[in-house]
């Protein structure tokens, strides 16, 4: 059974289309083209949400039980996070186009990976360990945190690319990218700490009898957390700005990505659920 897959396939195509439209809009600097891109993203988000709800009903739980579902949900968080940032007014002017393009590209890539023949879209019954309300709390909060880290990553990469050109007109744009990366990490970090470390520990205690066991997923989640702790310390206390801070934001996201995907594929552990 592959519930919701049709909705996910449609949303994947729409994310890709939205990404291309946003790219064109960014290049020709036409607001109406960017609006079409944002509209397409919003439609894709709605279609994907319907798919997630249907899949959740079929599964009888939160649909993040395997890599396919996790990738789909990850893409959803990217798109949803983009609209949260838009609504908060953080994304204005050039940021709206550049960050939006980067985040929607992330969503499209996740959907493409989920749709690859390597990942079975079938709804698999939950294994005993995943039959818990902690699944929704733990995974969703981690993904919310990582959604913000993605925005910080995109801002960091754009900062690194733009700062190489050193055009005086870019200085304000660079400052805004730097501030956005900091703000995204500052918002995402508490979610990541609460969902990933705290709720993860409580659930592990319930399911396995120990709150921490140096499982590869736990270990790399700690590494990711430490990298962001490092970022916040050097940014707030040592006043690191610009390229150095952007590099840490990029490294932090790469660690988060490795924790999510790399550990699943390369290192087997208690968190390997297919």
């Amino acid at each position: 059974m592959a519930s919701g897959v049709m909705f996910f396939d449609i949303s994947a195509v729409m994310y890709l289309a939205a990404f291309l439209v946003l790219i064109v809009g960014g290049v020709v600097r036409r607001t109406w083209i960017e609006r079409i891109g944002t509209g397409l993203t919003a439609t894709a988000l709605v279609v994907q949400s319907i798919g997630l709800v249907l899949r959740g009903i079929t599964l009888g739980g939160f649909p993040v039980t395997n890599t396919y579902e996790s990738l789909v949900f990850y893409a959803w968080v990217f798109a949803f996070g983009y609209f949260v940032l838009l609504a908060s007014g953080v994304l204005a002017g050039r940021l709206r186009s550049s960050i939006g393009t980067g985040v929607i590209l992330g969503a499209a890539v996740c959907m493409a990976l989920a749709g690859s023949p390597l990942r079975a879209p079938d709804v698999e019954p939950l294994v005993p360990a995943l039959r818990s309300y902690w699944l929704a709390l733990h995974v969703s909060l981690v993904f919310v945190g990582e959604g913000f880290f993605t925005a910080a990553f995109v801002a960091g990469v754009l900062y690194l690319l733009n700062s190489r050109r050193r055009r005086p007109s870019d200085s304000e744009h660079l400052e805004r990218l730097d501030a956005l990366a900091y703000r995204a990490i500052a918002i995402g970090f508490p979610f990541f700490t609460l969902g990933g470390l705290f709720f993860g520990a409580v659930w592990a205690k319930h399911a396995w009898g120990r709150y921490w066991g140096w499982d590869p997923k736990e270990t790399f989640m700690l590494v990711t957390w430490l990298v962001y702790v490092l970022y916040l310390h050097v940014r707030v206390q040592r006043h690191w700005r610009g390229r150095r801070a952007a590099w840490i934001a990029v490294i932090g996201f790469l660690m988060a990505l490795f924790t999510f995907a790399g550990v699943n594929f390369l290192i087997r552990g208690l968190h390997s659920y297919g």
Partner: protein
Amino acid sequence: MPPPSPGRATLKRLKRALLRGTTLAGSLRWGIVLLFLLTVATVIGGILPQSPVTPNADELYRSYGVFWYRLITRLSLGDVFHSIWFYVLTGVFTLNLALCSGRRIRRSVSGLRQRPTDTHMGSTGGDIRQIPMSETSVQTVARILNRFGFRRIARSGEKQLVASRHGWSILAPDVVHAGILVILVGALLGVFRQEGTFVVNDLQIGLGIPACAGLSEPASTDCIPLPYDVRVDDFGVETYSDGVRVKDYWAELSFLQDEAVVRQGRISVNHPLTIAGFGFYPWRYGEDAQAAHVRLQVFEPSVNAVTSEIELRIGETAVIPNTQSWLTALRFYRTFALDPEGNPMDLGDVEGGYSAVLIQVVGRDETGEDIAYRDLALPFLADSAAAVPQMFILADAAIPAFLELHYARNPGYAVVCAGFIVVMLGLGTALYFRPTKALVAIESMAVRLQIQGRGASKALQRIAEAILEAHEERD
């Protein structure tokens, strides 16, 4: 003036060195270095296979070569998180955090006690609005600021006010640090944890596992460090509608004291039972092949017929009927196969294969000669065993299910949870309650309002409206 005595001078030098040492040990720069080292150590521990799945010395030597073999073994890189150097690193980090927090908290508390000043505000920092109006009183503005949460208000000149809101939130980083210290203390308390596992199969249902809490030398390792005996009354597995895929596994437990039931309960995955601080968890469910109950047919080659049957469990010994020999069932193979060197091996649960039992026969044959041999009982008569006095056919095998239960008590868990709650409070405070400062200058034909900090523009708008409203009401 007499010169200071040598003893006092040494003491002074020592004091100065100690002060320098603690300053360095608690410095942010050192903290960042330690965070970096901890990150690197954790990455190493995450990438290299860790104990108990660490490759043995021989494998390490062959896979990595001499240099890496020496490095991995000398630095305990196969068990990073339990190595001395990792403990030392964590200890030094804890010290850094404690010293840094101590210094920070002193600064934060003294900052809290101070009256608000316009330092760091400048004339252009934050959001500024000039509200045109005829002169208003300082008291009116102070009252309005108070209404908007600016509780600490001070005069900065005759017609100037400085006020602050959420000033206490400067303690947020200290709260986060304190939470992390509590988590580290909780993790340290984890050295006093007690845990273990025990396995029950179908045949052991209703049998008690004795308590051995308080015994200085437990008589057996098969006991629970609890004041109660534990009895598994039943256990089983719940499957989905296809009857194959496991939905849950469960066990009914009874806790007994002097043979009287103190408490009963059911455990399943994610639903443990806690008693006397110990949590009980279903850990693993499966079939216990080495507790199989087998029925063997005895084939006499001399009469070319099955002459008798023996029923026994793996590990048990039984007399072979009408002989002076004993048979012991040594091992059960669910799916029997021979490895390339001709040794028997178990392929596990494979469709199409056949089972086997490794047996040992000891005794005398009909001529009175001592015999001792090992053979395999297969579901059919094997040709190769023709030289032995009896041959054995595996007629039937019943494999009991087993459940492995885990029990654990960790006195640090509650402390770690408390630490996380404190950390989250600190992070929430840092994120949502940043200090806001307001500077109000009452001029002859206007009020100049300057607000700096979180939500400055919104606060500026609302306070300006309130000042205007109050002014209109007065008029």
